[in-house]
């Protein structure tokens, strides 16, 4: 930094001191920082510090073709990239008034739900690790890896798939994919008991997570909390059901809620959501073979595709919460403006700063992970 920062100054006669959680800290999710002012172990105030992951996505996208942008959108949120591709495609389809073939829609939902499973498995481990239990993160990441294998088979990429394009998905599912998916779901269900015993009903964990980082419903609405974090306060709202996109209104699933609004409630909501996703995937496995037809609508030459003028705001339910893109086209080969409303842009900044006040240093990392914030969504 600047030399003047090292020029000694008299410190105020106060007992407050500062701690830096992140960017190089195990208690932070990704490259992000949370600066704390503490007195003893009580947090006086917390200040989020973002920008470590800033790449100027929105600027980058203005400089690339509509189709090229598909390659960079999943990079905005790494643990859960599929919704990014889908929602970007949705806005383009909305501007172009394209109709995605039904089979394409089913496959998209399949990916979305599989991605949700992978993301939640990742989160459990992270949350448990902040409380000192590392075994769930070992298990969770390994089990997530099996989902990534499925993705690899389906799309060719483990983490970044670039499988959705405006108009549908790039290609149909491989032979026998649904069987392997079904096996994976069976496996996940056999693991349910292990996870419950190890994590969700572990007395020590429950003691750590209960009544920590409580948001009530009013605060949640005021601060714009979305997704599982909102459902953990008792409001059964889910974009998939209440603002349905793709074929979600044809699927039968529940919206798990908890009322406590604390860290435990949030992780339990995610746990239930994971098994709701399993339920959705089972329906897809059952229905998908009967949905015939192409997987994508024809699009013009992608290298010379001038999307017609218009604007569209589309949102989906990602594993972190409400994810939305605002896309503006001026009829040119490149987007005029793409605004990414990351699901975590509220959680990781204002909600966290508000929740941290008065909490204890023990719980800060846990609160952060229980909100399941994804810093690159803030930075973009």
């Amino acid at each position, binding site marked *: 930094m600047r030399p003047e920062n090292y*020029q000694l100054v008299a410190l105020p006669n106060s007992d407050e001191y500062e701690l830096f959680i992140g960017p190089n800290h195990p208690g932070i999710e990704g490259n992000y920082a949370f600066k704390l002012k503490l007195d003893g172990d009580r947090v006086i105030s917390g200040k989020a510090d973002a920008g470590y992951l800033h790449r*100027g996505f929105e600027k980058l996208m203005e400089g690339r073709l509509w189709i090229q942008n598909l390659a960079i959108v999943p990079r905005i949120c790494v643990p859960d990239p599929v919704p990014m591709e889908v929602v970007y495609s949705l806005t383009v389809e909305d501007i172009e008034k394209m109709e995605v073939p039904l089979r394409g829609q089913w496959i998209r939902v399949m990916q979305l739900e599989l991605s949700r499973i992978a993301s939640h498995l990742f989160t459990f481990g992270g949350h448990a690790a902040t409380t000192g239990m590392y075994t769930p993160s070992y298990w969770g990441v390994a089990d997530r890896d099996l989902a990534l294998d499925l993705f690899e088979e389906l799309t060719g990429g483990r983490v970044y798939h670039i499988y959705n394009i405006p108009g549908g998905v790039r290609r149909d599912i491989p032979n026998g994919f649904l069987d392997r998916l079904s096996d994976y779901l069976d496996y996940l269900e056999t693991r349910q008991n292990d996870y419950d015993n190890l994590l969700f009903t572990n007395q020590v964990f429950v003691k750590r997570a209960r009544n920590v980082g409580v948001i009530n419903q009013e605060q949640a609405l005021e601060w714009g909390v979305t997704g599982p974090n909102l459902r953990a306060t008792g409001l059964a709202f889910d974009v998939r059901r209440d603002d349905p996109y793709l074929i979600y209104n044809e699927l039968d699933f529940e919206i798990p809620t908890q009322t406590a609004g604390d860290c435990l409630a949030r992780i339990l909501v995610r746990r239930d959501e994971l098994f709701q996703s399993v339920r959705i995937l089972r329906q897809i496995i059952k229905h998908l073979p009967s949905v015939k037809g192409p997987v994508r609508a024809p699009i013009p030459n992608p290298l010379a595709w001038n999307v017609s003028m218009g604007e569209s705001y589309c949102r989906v339910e990602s594993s972190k919460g409400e994810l939305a893109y605002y896309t503006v086209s001026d009829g040119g080969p490149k987007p005029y403006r793409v605004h990414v409303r990351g699901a975590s842009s509220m959680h990781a900044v204002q909600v966290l700063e508000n929740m941290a006040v008065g909490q204890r240093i023990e719980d800060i990392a846990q609160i952060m992970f229980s909100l399941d914030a994804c810093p*690159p969504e803030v930075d973009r």
Partner: protein
Amino acid sequence: MSKIGNIPVNAQAGKKRTNPLAGVFDELVQFCQSRSMFMLHYCTGCGAIELPPAMTSRFDMERLGIQPMVTPRQADILLVTGYVSVKTLKRVILTYEQMQSPKYVIGICSCTVNGGMYWQSYATAKVLNEYLPVDVYIAGCMPRPEAVIEGMRRLMRNIEEGKGHAWKDYFQRYDYYLGNQQHLFGDDWQTPTDIIGEARHYGLETEQTYGEHTRILEQHQQPLEPHKMRIKF
């Protein structure tokens, strides 16, 4: 234009170890260094997402003696996982300087090599080895866990064969690295770590340690002498 390639390191500089026994056991130490690598828990970019799989049950890095460590003091390897924004780069450099030698930098993902898919981004630094001496690059977007582990094994082999000396380059050609840092961050860039002092202390300095950029640093810098324990009445 910087050139990716083998960094010309004078491996013999600083060879005279302060530890009298280490000369005898040099190879043993080198072997152990290759078999026990503590990597820093610092996710600088999106490539970090492939580290948990590499660390955990499926690929299990610990069987190679690699384990994550929390603070730069404890760690040997700095994994720069993907693009580094300028804001992060400052922290990465600080973190690197706070790490203790022998230390290694692995650039994971294509973005560290040449900007990758963010080549036109105003916020990310493009070529990592302009700012830090990089031991191994693992290209890919993003490299699979197998590739990460393979890269680690390459580093292990390098160390075992006595080739992992890129860290000395940072001391020996500090002026070059500092110049690039100053170009990006401004001339009054100063980290609290005293690299020149360290190079002097451990006998790692060469003529190229000093230059115009270190002179600029000396003009600007606030000297950070450690508090010496002293008995003064």
